[in-house]
């Protein structure tokens, strides 16, 4: 059965009474203890998103604190170099803190304040979600704890230092693969024990339904800006337009596409394909993983026959996650978006090429999206337009890049 996206309803609201998208993705597979806090949060957010003052407040902080709008630029040199479609970038890495994770973090802190909570906790992989939550928490006077896999703490040092500077307590997670999947689990377990005093922020469009909603609602700012910028640049939405975004949990892509949902723009999501000759990857949509339950939601997820969650591998900590947002599962099955993957090597090459030719230097996550743009552009006509969401800055990946390529340029 082909699923259908409805026209006059925001994507995040297209679920049934069990909070499932397309009848099979999402939901709330949670312990009883979390039912009430999640219910409370659902009600509060439902009210706030209809409240004019709250929207004003959000817009105020997006403008003055996050720094909206982020630039929309043509990558002239890359376009010339590849000789095909015109390539543009939405430089979301110019947002305060250096990535799209600031939108979700800011909104969560505003909500936590309204809920009267004094503490926030969050998970992080690449360290951006944690860095931004620690920043926003500091700004809004909340105490902050971040759960991060021990492997990621080692490989994303600059963001770890930023979190420390912002006064956040970093809890290293040493269970399992010691990456994002374990950080999210540990953060949820912490929330089970502390949900009476503490607000939880899930760092991407994953987890129980309300966290998917809040996150996608927050990152939607990216495409609100982009819609205006595209119309200013081209007068119309170009007839052949591709919006390319990397997907880990999927928050950046969901925000990048949202306003274009009912247009003819094509959406391409790029997952982490992992090392070139490895069986391991972090691309459940590309590789046909089965539906399973991870972190409270049904989704396509890397797992074995029994239902044990599988190991992943990616050079990019932010994409190194076995699951994917139920929203993207829905978009995939409704054929509204197409998903593919880029390998570690392709992402590194894309980082290098873009950094060399242009004034931007994407981190390893958006480099996966650039890798797809680099593959596609030469095959397309010059009347076609590709926009890549450059949602993170390479600075955090300096160590890895140096080690892999021998030198780091920015």
């Amino acid at each position, binding site marked *: 059965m082909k699923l259908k996206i409805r026209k006059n309803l925001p994507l995040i609201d297209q679920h049934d009474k069990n909070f499932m998208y397309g009848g099979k993705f999402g939901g709330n597979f949670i312990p009883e203890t979390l039912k009430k806090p999640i219910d409370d949060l659902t009600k509060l957010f439902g009210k706030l998103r209809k409240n004019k003052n709250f929207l004003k407040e959000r817009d105020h902080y997006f403008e003055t604190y996050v720094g909206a709008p982020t630039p929309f630029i043509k990558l002239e040199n890359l376009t010339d170099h590849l000789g095909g479609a015109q390539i543009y970038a939405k430089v979301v890495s110019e947002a305060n803190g250096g990535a799209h994770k600031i939108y979700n973090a800011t909104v969560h802190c505003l909500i936590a304040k309204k809920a009267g909570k004094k503490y926030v906790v969050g998970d992080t992989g690449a360290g951006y979600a944690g860095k931004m939550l620690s920043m926003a928490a500091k700004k809004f006077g909340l105490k902050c704890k971040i759960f991060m896999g021990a492997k990621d703490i080692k490989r994303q040092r600059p963001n770890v230092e930023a979190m420390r500077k912002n006064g956040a307590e970093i809890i290293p997670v040493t269970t399992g693969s010691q990456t994002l999947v374990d950080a999210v689990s540990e953060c949820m377990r912490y929330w*089970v024990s502390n949900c009476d005093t503490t607000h939880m922020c899930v760092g991407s469009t994953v987890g129980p339904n309300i966290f998917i909603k809040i996150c996608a609602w927050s990152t939607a700012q990216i495409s609100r800006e982009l819609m205006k910028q595209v119309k200013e640049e081209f007068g119309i939405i170009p007839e052949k337009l591709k919006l390319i975004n990397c997907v880990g949990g999927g928050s950046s892509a969901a925000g990048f596409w949202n306003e274009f949902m009912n247009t003819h723009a094509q959406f391409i999501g790029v997952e982490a394909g992992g090392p070139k000759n490895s069986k391991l990857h972090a691309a459940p949509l590309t590789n046909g993983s089965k539906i399973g339950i991870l972190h409270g939601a049904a989704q396509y997820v890397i797992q074995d026959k029994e239902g*044990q969650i599988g190991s992943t591998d990616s050079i990019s900590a932010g994409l190194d996650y076995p699951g994917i947002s139920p929203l993207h599962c829905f978009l995939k099955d409704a054929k509204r978006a197409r998903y593919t993957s880029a390998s570690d090597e392709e992402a590194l090459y894309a980082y290098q090429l873009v950094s060399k030719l242009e004034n931007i230097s994407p981190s390893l996550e958006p480099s996966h999206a650039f890798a797809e743009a680099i593959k596609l552009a030469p095959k397309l006509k010059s009347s076609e337009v590709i926009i890549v969401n450059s949602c993170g800055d390479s600075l955090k990946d300096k160590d890895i890049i140096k080690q892999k390529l021998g030198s780091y340029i920015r």
Partner: protein
Amino acid sequence: MKSKIALAFNNCKKEKRPALITYTVAGDNTKNNSLKILNKISKHADILELGFPHNTPIADGGQIQGSSHRALKNGIKLKDVFQIVKKFKKNNPHKPIILMGYFNLIYQNGENNFLESCKSSGVDGLIIVDLPYPENKNFANKCKKKSINFIQLLSPTTSKDRIKKIIKNSHDMIYYISMLSTTGGRLKVSPKKILQNYNTIKRINPKKNLVIGFGITEKTISSLKSANGLVVGSMLCKIITNSLKMGQNPVTKLDKVVYNLKKKII
């Protein structure tokens, strides 16, 4: 016909004591040992909970995670879990056994398939940590049709209204989570407070068997003995961990510990 779970509670009520309910993980630390453990502790315990391990548990504390990790490292599969139950039931046909775990394993196995295996191996009840009410209605009904108890959970955060609905939808046993915690947290609420909450719930339907779990150890168990049943889990997992560390036999160790727990509530 009364379920074995209901009969176990009746028995305890006659003896004016709570049911002692243990939790261990299938395959911890080996398939053989976990079966031996069940055989031994069933002499003292009234109902046995057996965890089928998942590698991404969102509500388990460190002790149970440790046990699950050991079991999975030993390659435990669902079919082994059922085998353990089957072998146990051969010698102990009347002792109720409850499987506890996360929904994804059932989802991948297929609900009907899973319940079939429960039935043929002799499982009496199920606790599914991440399948709360009302999402569990469908599956709980399937269980009921197969005469398998679906055990609902209540927590200190559950609203009164919700408690009533859940009790209405419950079978022979309801599980009250003593505090806001993953499994194995230290008891951070006083037993008095826990019993207060417990009694409020109990008054809604005094006939239902309501048990308390999370954070119960040999130190706290006797202060909660007015409940219909008490679950001890993480403490047992911890003892397995410690005896392995010290090169002791976890089977004899656990036998002793559960015997002592029982003594504290009779």
